[in-house]
């Protein structure tokens, strides 16, 4: 939790130092600027550079080591165990979102995997076609009516986010029931779990990040675009406005020159 407080302080400091992107005046650049929703781009790019260095020297070797030490099946078991511990938090958010059907599914998954999956190590639920559902507080805020995500943010080590999703992340970090139980035993257990969770998330994203880095002419812009589009869709579905989203999505094909 201390980490998050430091993180927010750091972000505020960095923001005041590196300042905002200049708002372009010509209409074409302005349209791109508004779509990117990234007024803090200089700061975000600086954090992104830091993340990349951290990734290159710490995370990537750690991922590589982890993958060479544990065979795939064992890694799956580790992943299953830690994602099972996430279910209580997902349950709380599903309830807060008023989505009781998903809450029930999440409960079923947690019960199945905890009881018949050796405390979550084996994903019995997926084998029985119980869908995977993830619910975070950023989504909950959106469902509650905070429609505007706020500017895009690149978080140190944690990656792409928005103001709303960062607020959600902070609430989730405090609200996770499993953390409360662990914290009671020893704070270090809760911190340790946080670090492992972060690492596993990175390990999952690692190949995708590698792919983007290799193929993109602007890695930062590609990640921003994909994150924003994916999150927008996820939230539109939760808010029950999927069709609306697709209508809005009608981008223009500038001067169709096909018939020339």
């Amino acid at each position, binding site marked *: 939790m201390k980490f998050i407080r430091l993180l927010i302080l750091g972000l505020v400091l960095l923001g005041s130092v590196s300042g905002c992107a200049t708002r372009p005046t010509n209409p074409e650049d302005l349209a791109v600027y508004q779509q*990117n929703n990234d007024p803090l781009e200089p700061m975000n790019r600086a954090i992104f550079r830091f993340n990349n260095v951290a990734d290159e020297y710490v995370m990537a070797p750690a991922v590589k080591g982890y993958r060479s030490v544990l065979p795939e099946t064992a890694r799956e078991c580790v992943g299953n165990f830690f994602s099972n511990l996430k279910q209580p938090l997902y349950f709380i958010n599903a309830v807060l979102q008023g989505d009781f059907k998903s809450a029930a599914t999440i409960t079923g998954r947690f019960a199945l995997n905890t009881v018949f999956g050796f405390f979550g190590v084996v994903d019995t639920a*997926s084998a029985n076609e119980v869908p995977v559902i993830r619910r975070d507080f950023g989504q909950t805020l959106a469902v509650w009516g905070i429609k505007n995500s706020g500017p895009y943010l690149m978080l140190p080590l944690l990656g792409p986010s928005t103001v709303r999703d960062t607020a959600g992340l902070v609430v989730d970090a405090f609200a996770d029931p499993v953390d409360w139980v662990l914290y009671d035993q020893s704070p270090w257990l809760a911190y340790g779990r946080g670090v492992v969770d972060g690492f596993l998330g990175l390990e999952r994203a690692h190949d995708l990040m590698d792919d983007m880095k290799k193929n993109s002419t*602007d890695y930062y812009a590609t990640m921003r675009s994909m994150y924003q589009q994916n999150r927008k*869709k*996820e939230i539109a579905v939760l808010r029950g406005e999927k069709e609306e989203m697709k209508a809005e999505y009608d981008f223009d*094909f500038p001067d169709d*020159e096909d018939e020339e």
Partner: protein
Amino acid sequence: MKKLYAFVLGILLMPCLARAENPAIEFVHNTADMVINDILIADVSREEKLERFRTEFTQALDLKNIGQFVLGVYWRKATAEEKEDFLKAFMDLTTKTWADRFDMYHGQKIIFTGARNAEGNQLYVDSTIQNNPPVEVIWRLKQKGDGYRIIDIIIEGVSMAMSYRNEYSAFLQNHGGQVRELIEELQTKEKQFVWSADKK
């Protein structure tokens, strides 16, 4: 008597059943089948796969329309030669990128769930890749003559065309709007390309 009715009804309905599959869905379905059977799971060399993939890509996609969209305002500013070179460089890198990504395919099924009209001569074909959680893939098509061309693929809300457009506009903004520089960057990326399977 009941049997007779059923028989007559069956004959009347037959042509409808045969055409039940929407032609747009059929087009995407065939394209996906071809890519899976002739490329992804075919037992041929990587060079051969890439070549087949390139052919399939050229036939199924409306490359010019895509190029026009992904370059956005810069398309209008580019010279005819730059446009041509860009399309080639874009195509070269994109085929490799996707051939590389498809290397990770391990037999998931694609289910086609329907088709919807979009504005003008465009339409969407909806599909789902079986996975947990399932992956939603929407194919954006354009009617061309009496056939179709793919102009965008939207995976879990992420439009490929939109992503490329955002990427290139960021690159071009940081490089004085010089399309030539983008073309050179794409060529460099393509030359330096390392297959994921070779890295592990």
